[in-house]
């Protein structure tokens, strides 16, 4: 191996389109639907989550359009309540949770480890099929009456409202299993299938983050499953667990729900952080700063994240003592996130930074995630939370972390690995323009909402006081810029299929294993079992010895 790994953009040509690879080795729809190849399963997941993202995005634009003016703009209150519920449910359960782990992670994790596949390839396929069945239930719920409970399904509203609540809840229940299966698979793969010589500390940080994510998926998702089943039973048989009229406790549902859903926000963000930890060193051509700090903060987030659920319930009637404990732990869990941000920043210090599209997304992530995290501190502070809870401030906060964080990282990762997945390079300039529009549109849409929320505008409002209109209108304009940016990014990526494969083996000059094999990879990933002779971020391999 050469002593210096080529810099981003330094290699050109040399596509391996004529060779057999995982895309062209077998043909026909059945060869995809019944494949056990982690790469093909990843690609199927990719199309599925992108379709979900599109549907959820259309719902989002409708929500924003309705809010352009108070009272009715384009739809009735009932329709609005259904649309915002579907937006949230689709984005959370069908898009964000599977997006990075099941689509990108499935594709790259075994490659990064130097493995031939995940530990349980059939379980992996089962995960995809279960996802598809869950998605069918979700679509059924949408067309048979819709759901108007919000993605949080709070009781007793959800046990008493009409509509396809049980079908939608059942969909989320099923989707939970696909998530658990992915988690089990990744845990086993990381423990057992690392290439010879790849110690835990020589794993790319992506794998550490995925490991932490998987632990949460496996431990937390069953709680959601049970909760949703109880909800369905409550609706069908009035068993009296959550409905006060039947002697149940509606707040109990919130405890159960957030016991899963707070850890679930880390199921969403840890994979985003995973991608950023790969992109930043590659495009800075400098080894990652604070490898262990980043790795262990992922694990710390996963563990402490289980004990902060009550910060969603400070005004729910929970005791003052409980509120205090949850607030304190919430502040603790913010620290590992802060540590990561500082580590990524320091990695850039004295680097050789090239602003390719994936790096632009990574830099956007840093800025947006910082805002998301800092506003989380407002919400963790008890007295301020009381004012801001259930207002647009919360809406803005979680969009900064989920969209500004996870989705931006997903887009960065998609651009980063696209050449590896399909053997095709996208247009850099168009990619950069799309990223800029997304960044600007996102901030116009959501920065505004911090002001709205602080002024007292509650969330999930169809109608609002006239005084809020200018800011709402501004936010709606922002959503159009954002939508345009995403559209351009999509066109840029998909139009690569119109040309011949042109991507080199390692276009960005990365040092992790997925770039050492063919582009696109062969079905068995590597021609020979790779040996590990340098760390995942050693761009100048001689260095470690001298350092």
């Amino acid at each position, binding site marked *: 191996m050469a002593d210096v790994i080529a810099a981003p953009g330094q290699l050109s040509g040399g596509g391996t389109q004529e060779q057999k690879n995982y895309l062209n080795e077998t043909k026909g729809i059945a060869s995809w639907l019944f494949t056990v190849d982690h790469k093909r399963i990843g690609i199927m997941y990719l199309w599925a989550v992108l379709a979900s993202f599109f549907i959820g995005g259309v719902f989002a634009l409708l929500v924003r359009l309705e809010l352009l003016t108070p009272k009715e703009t384009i739809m009735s209150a009932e329709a609005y309540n259904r649309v915002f519920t579907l937006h949230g449910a689709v984005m959370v359960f069908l898009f964000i949770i599977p997006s990075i782990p099941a689509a990108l992670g499935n594709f790259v994790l075994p490659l990064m480890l130097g493995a031939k596949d995940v530990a349980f390839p059939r379980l992996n396929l089962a995960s995809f099929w279960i996802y598809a069945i869950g998605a069918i239930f979700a679509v059924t719920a949408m067309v048979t009456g819709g759901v108007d409970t919000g993605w949080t399904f709070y009781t007793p509203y959800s046990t008493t409202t009409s509509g396809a609540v049980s079908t939608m809840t059942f969909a989320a229940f099923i989707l939970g299993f696909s998530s658990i299966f992915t988690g089990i698979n990744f845990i086993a793969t990381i423990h057992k299938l690392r290439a010879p010589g790849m110690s835990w500390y020589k794993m790319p940080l992506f794998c550490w983050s995925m490991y932490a994510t998987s632990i949460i998926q496996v431990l937390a998702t069953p709680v959601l499953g049970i909760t949703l089943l109880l909800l369905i039973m409550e609706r069908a048989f009035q068993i009296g667990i959550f409905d006060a009229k039947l002697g149940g406790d509606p707040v109990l549902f919130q405890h159960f729900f957030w016991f899963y859903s707070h850890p679930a926000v880390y199921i969403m963000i840890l994979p985003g952080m995973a991608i950023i930890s790969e992109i930043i060193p590659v495009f800075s051509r400098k080894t990652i700063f604070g490898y262990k700090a980043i790795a262990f903060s992922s694990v710390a987030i996963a563990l402490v994240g289980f004990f902060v659920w009550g910060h969603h319930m400070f005004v729910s*009637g929970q005791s003052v003592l409980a509120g205090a404990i949850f607030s304190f732990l919430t502040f603790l869990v913010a620290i590992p996130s802060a540590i990561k941000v500082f580590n990524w920043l320091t990695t850039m210090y004295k680097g050789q930074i090239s602003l390719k599209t994936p790096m632009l997304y990574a830099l956007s992530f840093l800025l947006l995630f910082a805002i998301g995290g800092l506003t989380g501190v407002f919400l963790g502070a008890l007295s301020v939370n009381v004012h801001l809870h259930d207002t647009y401030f919360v809406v803005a906060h979680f969009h900064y972390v989920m969209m500004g964080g996870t989705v931006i990282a997903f887009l960065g990762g998609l651009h980063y690995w696209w050449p590896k997945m399909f053997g095709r390079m996208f247009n850099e300039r168009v990619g950069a323009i799309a990223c800029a529009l997304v960044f600007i549109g996102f901030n116009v849409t959501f920065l505004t909402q911090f002001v709205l929320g602080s002024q007292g505008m509650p969330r999930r409002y169809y109608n609002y006081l006239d005084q809020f209109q200018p800011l709402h209108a501004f936010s709606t304009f922002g959503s159009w810029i954002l939508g345009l940016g995403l559209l351009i990014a999509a066109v840029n990526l998909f139009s690569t299929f119109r040309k011949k494969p042109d991507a080199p083996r390692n276009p960005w000059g990365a040092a992790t294993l997925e770039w050492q094999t063919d582009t696109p990879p062969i079905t068995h990933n590597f021609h020979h079992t790779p040996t590990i002779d340098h760390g995942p971020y050693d761009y100048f391999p001689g260095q470690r010895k001298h350092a």
Partner: protein
Amino acid sequence: MNWLRSVMLPAEGSSYAREVDTLYLFLVWLSVFFFVLIAGLMGWFVWRYRKSRSRGGPTPYITHHTGLELVWSVIPLLILIGIFFWGFHGFIKANVAPGDALEIQVTGKKWLWTFEYPNGTRSINSIHVPVGRPVKLVMSSEDVIHSFFIPSFRVKQDVLPNRYTELWFDPVKPGVHQVFCAEYCGKSHSDMMAKIYVDDQAAYEKWLEEGDEELKKMPLPELGKLIYETRGCNTCHSIDGTPGQGPSFKGIWGQQHKFADGSTAVVDANYIRKSVLEPQAQVRAGYEPIMPTFQGLLREREILAVIEYIKSLR
């Protein structure tokens, strides 16, 4: 920092609001500091260490720096612990009502708020309270969870169907304050609003005695419209002909209506009075018997006003 406060936050209606705002504004400046730090370093590194400026050769191999990492873990930790205690201090205050507070019972119901005073006076979607005296609301819900949110007092509390929750505030000057429902509760969640009128002592007592002065001067149809909008009729009844939870008011005056028990009646003054006071007596065919009674909630003149208003909706 007053400009920032007035841009970001609603006017302060209570002395407690000041404590929340001070912490909020501190957090804004703290966030601005850290954001500028992060963005500034990022921008500087991108510019200073851009590839076209490098002289080639390997980048330095810097794996970690224990001192630096301790600094950026411990300092934020200390700041956050400080913020925790600050927020906790206010939270305790918001949770412990003074013993001499005026107690008002609040009931949330899709989609209106009902208030009951110690002396039995009741009102819907608006309350009057005396300035300078703490007020404690003891709240419960008749159906799903609602949340009582008064932005200008910086207080909020969920209203639950199976237990009483409390919220208190100490209004400092006369004025009007907006109440929102902050927990999603269905179709008219966003219209489930109320107003809190903070009166001086004399005006407050007068209101308790005889109801609102302004309302008394208003012409009947106009008063009827106001009642329709502020007492919750509009959450169930439309005035444009579209049926909602209840029938629309448009053009019903003089119509012959059929009831669930098969009988019929013509919509006239007596019928409307009876519909408002004993809604369950004659339930229109095709509707659920869910209309609450307004017995004791609407004064005689207000019922007349509603009748005139419905009459005017031809």
